């Protein structure tokens, strides 16, 4: 899958979980500090990415991902 396609899907999941419709999201945006994800939303993001891409991510490594761009790169390893 192309990186751009991954990014589009990642943004879709972020929008659904964090309710960011209409917000411009950049690759450097931090899930917690910029997008306001709390602990439970962080789990939802992991679950959302797994479902969207039909993958199973390494649980502890997935929680290390902090930015949107890093999420795209991380997921790219699995698809």
């Amino acid at each position, binding site marked *: 899958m192309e990186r751009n396609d991954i990014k589009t899907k990642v943004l879709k999941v972020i929008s659904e979980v964090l309710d960011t419709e209409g917000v411009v999201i950049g690759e450097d945006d931090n899930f917690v*500090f910029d997008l306001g994800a709390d602990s439970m939303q962080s789990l*939802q993001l992991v679950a959302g990415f797994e479902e969207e891409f039909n993958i199973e991510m390494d649980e502890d490594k997935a929680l290390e991902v902090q930015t949107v761009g890093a999420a795209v790169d991380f997921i790219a390893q699995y698809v």
Partner: protein
Amino acid sequence: MKYRNLTDSEITALLSQGCFCDDWTAVRVSGPFNPAHIHSARFEGTVKLCPMNQEVAPGEGAPKPSGLYSCYIKDCEIQGPVYISQVGRLEGYTIEKDVRIENVSSLVVESPTAFGNGTEIEVLNEGGGREVLIFDQLTAQIAYLMANYRHEPEMIVRLKELIQDYCQRKQSDRGVIQSGASIRDVQTIRNVNFGPKALVSGAQSLEEGTISSTEAAPAHIGEGVIAKHFIVLSGAQVDSGAILDKCLVGQGVRIGKQFSAENSLFFANCEGFHGEAVSLFAGPYTVTHHKSSLLIAGMFSFFNAGSGSNQSNHMYKLGPLHQGWLERGCKTGSFSYLLWPCRIGAFSVVMDKHSSNFDTSEFPFSYITLEDGKSTLTPAMNLFTVGTRRDSEKWPRRDRRKDPDKLDLIHFELFSPYIVTKMIRGSEILQKLYEETPKEQKYVKYKGVSILRLLLKTCRKYYQIALKKYYGEQLLKRLESRSFDTLAGLREILQPQETYTGDWADMAGLLAPRAVIQEITEAIKDGQIKRIEQLRARLKMAYENYEEYTWAWYVHTLERETGTAIGQATQGQFIELIQDWKANAAKLNNMILKDAEKEFDQNSRIGFGVDGDEEVKESDFSRVRGAYDGNEFVRSLQAENEAIEKKAADWTARLEQLLTPEIRNPSKDR
């Protein structure tokens, strides 16, 4: 002790020192009695005195010369040197040596009493039906049976008889103030017994109670305390204006700062400050520190109440008859609210206000929050939080009980058969819900709570991580204490000694197979257990056999859940268990480390360096909070990860070198 009448010269001396008595023949003395240390004392009834010729060394304060000064003493036996001064009325007591009683208005035993023993407490359900009789040997486990095994009416009747029999033995018209006790600056005390080195200082009023202090673990009642119908056990401290009515204060418990409680039980190492407790069953390590926190009609243990935690047991229908159950290790967030009846799974965190009834007991380590107006469960999330890990490590370290006779039986293990069974069931339920729920559905409902469909699979995975960690960890724990050099030998030493393979229960700290508890209840019913002391011994046996019970359950569960039968397992299967343990133990630790890292992130720095720029903020933060890499908890977890790697490598190598039957004796097996 042999007593004699006073001599004329002794009476003359006492009279000259302001003493008074209607009938001096009723004042009897022992040994080389010397009246020099008795001034302004009035005696009434039968009073027995021993020589006052030594210093008194009470449990608290500097030694004092013994003697009786400005006091009224009626029907008392003073068995050794004591210091009694400014006591308005002292009546009906046997007073042992080294006791100090000073500035007390009234200290009396007025009528036959059991000193608080046998007081009936309406615990858990204010409407009644779960009454517990308190006494000075009451353990969390006996109270658990009494309160919660009402489905065994014969056992309850018999248990009640055992307790009443014990309390009958405590019945007396004479109290005891045991050696080394110190009672001072108190207004009124009525029908209270004092154990060795009990310290009562500044209390306002104590009635119908026992302060079961011991040499090794003195109990302390402090300033402004008002207590009626109570038992305070060794090492406990009740002070600073606490108000207790019908309460048991267990070993090592701290109650104070104007906390008030009625009809409540506080077992080992509980802490109650500022707030209020009503019909509370506070199992070991229940802690509530804040004003406006009310714990009512609930069962708790290893619990931490956030400020303003509150529950309702009244739905304005038939009365306050609802009850709640928070299994061990739960926390409630600030201003959280629960509407009883409710049952919360072990090691869960409750945040927000919940006005629906739910049962999450099949999902330990969960978060319960309010999302979109719904009580929402996030299962397994608390498995990998710093708090859970830190709590499980701190409880054993914070056991304040110094008394060698520890009443409450407490297992501290985070992962026990009880909890692991729950995780297995929780996993199964999440899997089933996942398979049954269409993707379009946002939430699923389960026993009164909502769970985000998206999280069903993920949360199940988290339980699986913990389970794999547990399976390998138990194996290693067993292997470490045993020697073997062949595969057959290995299988042999892993055979369980016990046969209990069924479900477990958490009896307010004691973890045991339900079948074992059932055997104990049968033994109570059929009269095998005839005295409270025997019941305690049976419970202790269950406590001490924890490891063997656990292993029997583990062997059975491992085969059922993974297909690995310990008795026939191959080298490969043993190695796989260890490799799975390594991967998942490290994974869980890494997730906890990620959680710890949040304590050092940008959000945690808000409010630091208030009058400066970013550099000041950094400097302020690093000086106050330190750095992630230098944090003691973080370092210990990182070190543990290294140890896990090494241990797994060592055991894998050892297992790989095992002599199989083929290698040991090839011709025989050919």
